[in-house]
């Protein structure tokens, strides 16, 4: 019955379409930071989604609203001692996501020039080894 | 004619009263469950009550024992034989569906542990009661059909369907917006994601159950079913009770874990 053939083909096509890889670029998503006061430090978090088939690495970041930025990884040492390790670069392997989140990787903003309040946005420029410079907007929110 | 599994082991009146008694048991157990949640922080007790409720629904409402009531059918083309196969097929389907819900429940336990999302208890209890009552009417409807009472079947099945719709509205149109207003959204964190995933998946099943009932109601109105042959009615019934059974576990998992302090 040709009805079945039509339906079957449509279904197969739909499934194939669904299997397409989503993006073949490196993207930075959901950049956010907590509110803070002038003169204080802050941290920017985001997700780096590397849809390319090339390994990459985040080398540095820059913002206008702070005097400098550093890449850090928060980590725990023995006995619940928390510390931060400055990172020269953060590897972002091919086809993987690397999450910058509280308690882990973060971009430290040193010495904010102005206060940040919930709802504000500001741009951050991220320099990648292969992908080059990517700029995204950071949303300031409480959590 | 080969005997069907449709042996009227009870007369209609006692079957109906049995359905009512089971509903009363379920209602009492739900009350006990809520009382336990109010006064104690004991997940194992809630699990026990849920299992007892589930057992009652599975045995008396879903007639799970009919799976073993297999008569030696020599005629593979007989209705009785097909009925047996159909039942096994339906329960296999429910088993696979249980994996979906079981997976969600496991996820909830793993991600949320002894905490629960901040939800409105009154709403939770109300929608639970609505679903329980709908199962009562579903059982009534099926019993009516088993005894050839088409009018009673139509009435009770319609009531079931309306209560199902009420449940859907209660969850999607009242509970969800309320949760979102409280800050529990699908993206607000694990608690929100788990809540919406569980209630959403369950509500979707209620929705398909309502559609199933609509189809069965239409066919019944056209006289397609009889006391001896009404497999679709039995299937819709068992599916409906399955959806209630899932909620028997989901309700305490979402609303009652941890002592209810106000």
């Amino acid at each position, binding site marked *: 019955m040709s009805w079945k053939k039509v339906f079957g083909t449509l279904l197969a096509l739909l499934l194939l379409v669904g299997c397409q890889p989503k993006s073949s670029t490196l993207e930075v998503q959901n950049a956010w930071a907590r509110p803070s006061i002038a003169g204080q430090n802050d941290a920017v978090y985001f997700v780096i989604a590397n849809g390319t088939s090339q390994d990459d690495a985040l080398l540095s970041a820059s913002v206008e609203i702070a005097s400098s930025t550093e890449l850090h990884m928060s980590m725990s040492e023995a006995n619940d001692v928390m510390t931060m390790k*400055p990172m020269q670069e953060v590897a972002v392997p091919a086809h993987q996501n690397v999450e910058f989140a509280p308690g882990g990787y973060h971009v430290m903003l040193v010495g904010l020039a102005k206060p940040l309040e919930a709802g504000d946005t500001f741009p951050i420029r991220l320099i990648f080894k292969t992908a080059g410079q990517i700029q995204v907007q950071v949303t300031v929110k409480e959590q | 004619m080969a005997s069907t599994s449709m042996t009227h082991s009870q007369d209609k009146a006692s079957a109906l009263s049995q359905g009512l008694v089971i509903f009363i048991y379920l209602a009492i157990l739900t009350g006990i469950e809520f009382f336990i949640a109010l006064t104690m922080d004991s997940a194992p007790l809630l699990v026990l009550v849920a299992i007892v409720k589930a057992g009652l629904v599975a045995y008396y409402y879903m007639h799970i024992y009919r799976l073993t009531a297999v008569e030696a059918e020599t005629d593979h083309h007989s209705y009785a034989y097909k009925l047996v196969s159909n039942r096994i097929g339906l329960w296999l389907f429910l088993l696979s569906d249980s994996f979906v819900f079981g997976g969600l429940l496991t996820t909830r336990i793993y991600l949320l542990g002894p905490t629960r999302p*901040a939800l409105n208890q009154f709403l939770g209890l109300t929608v639970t009661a609505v679903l329980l009552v709908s199962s009562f009417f579903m059982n009534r409807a099926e019993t009516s059909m088993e005894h050839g009472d088409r009018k009673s079947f139509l009435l009770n099945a319609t009531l079931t369907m309306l209560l199902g719709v009420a449940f859907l509205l209660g969850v999607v149109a009242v509970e969800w917006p309320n949760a979102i207003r409280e800050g529990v959204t699908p993206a607000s964190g694990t608690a929100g994601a788990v809540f919406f995933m569980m209630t959403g998946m369950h509500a979707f099943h209620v929705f398909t159950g309502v559609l199933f009932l609509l189809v069965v109601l239409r066919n019944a109105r056209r006289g397609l079913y009889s006391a001896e042959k009404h497999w679709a009615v039995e299937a819709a019934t068992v599916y409906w009770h399955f959806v209630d059974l899932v909620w028997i576990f989901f309700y305490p998992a979402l609303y009652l874990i941890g002592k209810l302090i106000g």
Partner: protein
Amino acid sequence: MDRKLAWVGLASLALIALAIVATLMLGKPPQFRGTTYDPLVPAPEIALKKANGEEYRLTDQKGKVVLLYFGYTYCPDICPTTLATLKQAYTNLGSDANKVEIVFITVDPDRDTPQSMQRYVNQFDASFIGLSGSTADLQPVWTEYGIFRELGPKDASGNYIVSHTARILVVDKQGNLHLSYPYGEQWQDILFDLRLLINQGGSQG
């Protein structure tokens, strides 16, 4: 009604009643989700200056549940995250909030003054208390509370990281160290324990 049905009902009720009794009898005292100090120890005194010049004394806070956290204002990630978590728990206390006090004590007295500590915690909630003092004042507090701190190397601009114990400590209404949490504890668990502590026994002092 069917005899068998009646038995099913009775048996179910009996089973559940039995389970409830067993749970109550074998029941353990309230299960805290944090790590309990066993045995409880009186919380060592903390006497440090607040931003307004008044002295804060921990022993004066009996009757309230006090959450202590040690950190520093130049911390961009761990400390804000922890204070945000404490804020979440605090906000959800509702009317019980006035029975709980949250105190942030510095591990970096060279850079943190009582005023800068208070300014820092005010971002989370104005009722939080920020404390600092001289290293001589703070060292005994760090030691007695088991707080490790280590100053990292100074960079070109003179900035440095401080590694420190990031546990949250809870002093109950009687002034005893009762619970502690590791970094990353969920606010719901902290809230749960706070409610237990608030409702525990009578208040003294």
